[in-house]
């Protein structure tokens, strides 16, 4: 117990220090980098808490994509915040009162790690005991995500797709701006080591993403994580070799179509089971053997999730980056 407790306390302590650092820093660049560190630390904490799938997602999303998006926003909006206008005292009072009430509320919470806490007694025992017989996959998280709670995941995928549309409609994608030959988003082009290293790294990242995608049934991983990792490889390419080069490799309109196709694939799997006389997203209708049907269904659904997540992340990054390009290209 003691060593786990020690690791726990150290990680949580680092998390608090990082969060305080973000709160006091006036430099937004430092805040964003600290936020990346914060995400990575919470991913480590999730591993300690046995949530390997979650840790995987947090590490790739929080420390990777989110930091990049925030940095590209900073290049458009400026690096420093105005420190004079904070209403500090009122903020402290509100936060202190809310925090005290919440801490008072935790006295009613069950003891941490209690196997007989109410949260452990419903649903979870069913998933742990029966999921292998009903779904046939060792990774319970994947079984619950793609099969038991398939509706939920479908909804989440639609939300991600919608967010992609939101960013596109807010920042727009003007194809006219990409006619310029020299792109500003190629600041690394003169760094030979970066170029060589990223050229070596990108193929393994892509293969790893595919492994995470298709091995998610048996180990940590799945469509969400694979999608983000796949997108990270493309974003790395775009950052090192320039947006225009990346656009030549990956057509943005194809990416936009793909983001819709992923959702469509997910929905069609549901419709097929519907047409075969079972409930929406009941994969046992997909093959004669219900377990095989579950396998097919989960594979297809995870693929749909992966395609949508990749496409949305890539098109969001492209949209932000082309904004940065246009802004700074105009001044140069």
């Amino acid at each position, binding site marked *: 117990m003691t060593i786990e407790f020690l690791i726990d306390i150290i990680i949580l302590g680092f998390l608090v220090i990082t969060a305080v650092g*973000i709160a006091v820093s006036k430099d937004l660049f430092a805040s964003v980098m600290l936020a990346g560190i*914060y995400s990575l630390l919470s991913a480590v904490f999730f591993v300690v808490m046995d949530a390997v799938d979650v840790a995987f997602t947090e590490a790739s999303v929080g420390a990777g994509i989110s930091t990049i998006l925030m940095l590209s926003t900073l290049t458009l909006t400026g690096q420093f915040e105005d420190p004079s206008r904070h209403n500090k005292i009122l903020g402290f009072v509100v936060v*202190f009162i809310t925090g005290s009430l919440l801490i008072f509320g935790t006295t009613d919470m069950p003891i941490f790690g209690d*196997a007989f806490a109410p949260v452990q007694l419903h649903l979870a025992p069913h998933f742990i005991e029966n999921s292998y017989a009903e779904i046939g996959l060792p990774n319970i998280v994947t079984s619950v995500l793609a099969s038991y709670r398939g509706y939920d995941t479908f909804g989440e995928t639609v939300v991600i797709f919608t967010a992609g549309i939101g960013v596109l409609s807010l920042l727009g994608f003007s194809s006219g701006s990409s006619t310029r030959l020299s792109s500003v988003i190629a600041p690394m082009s003169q760094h030979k080591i970066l170029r060589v290293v990223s050229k070596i790294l990108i193929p393994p990242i892509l293969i790893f993403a595919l492994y995470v995608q298709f091995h998610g049934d048996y180990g940590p991983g799945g469509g969400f994580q694979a999608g983000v990792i796949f997108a990270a490889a493309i974003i790395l390419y775009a950052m090192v070799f320039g947006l225009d080069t990346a656009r030549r490799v990956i057509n943005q309109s194809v990416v936009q179509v793909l983001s819709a196709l992923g959702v469509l694939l997910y929905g069609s799997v549901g419709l097929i089971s519907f047409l075969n006389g079972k409930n929406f997203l009941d994969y046992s209708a997909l093959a004669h053997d219900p377990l095989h049907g579950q396998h097919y269904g989960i594979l297809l659904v995870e693929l749909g999730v992966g395609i949508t997540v990749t496409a949305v992340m890539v098109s969001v990054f492209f949209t932000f980056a082309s904004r940065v390009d246009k802004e700074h290209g105009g001044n140069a």
Partner: protein
Amino acid sequence: MSQYNYWVVIILMMIGFYIVISHGNLVKKLIGLSIFQTSVFILYISMGKVTGGTAPILDPDYTVFSNPLPHVLILTAIVVGIATTAVGLALVVRIKEAYGTIEESEIQQKDDEEC
């Protein structure tokens, strides 16, 4: 001491909340919001932990597993979180273009002048 996890979660949540309400810069507010969000993730994952348990991937060598349900909920929440953050950042960029600033009070000032 058995609930130290939850207390740290509340401290983190309050730091995020403080950034959201008392900082005027919109990017900073979004960073605060993501701290708040992550603290909620930590709360959920902490609740799913079973002492002596292992990651919920079935293996004949283990019998005690942590609760997989919070993991599923938080996994999807993280990806949805980044998607909504992206929309927020896009809004910030548009506000910067329309107002020339992303400080809340200056935006308010410009709005008042126009009225």
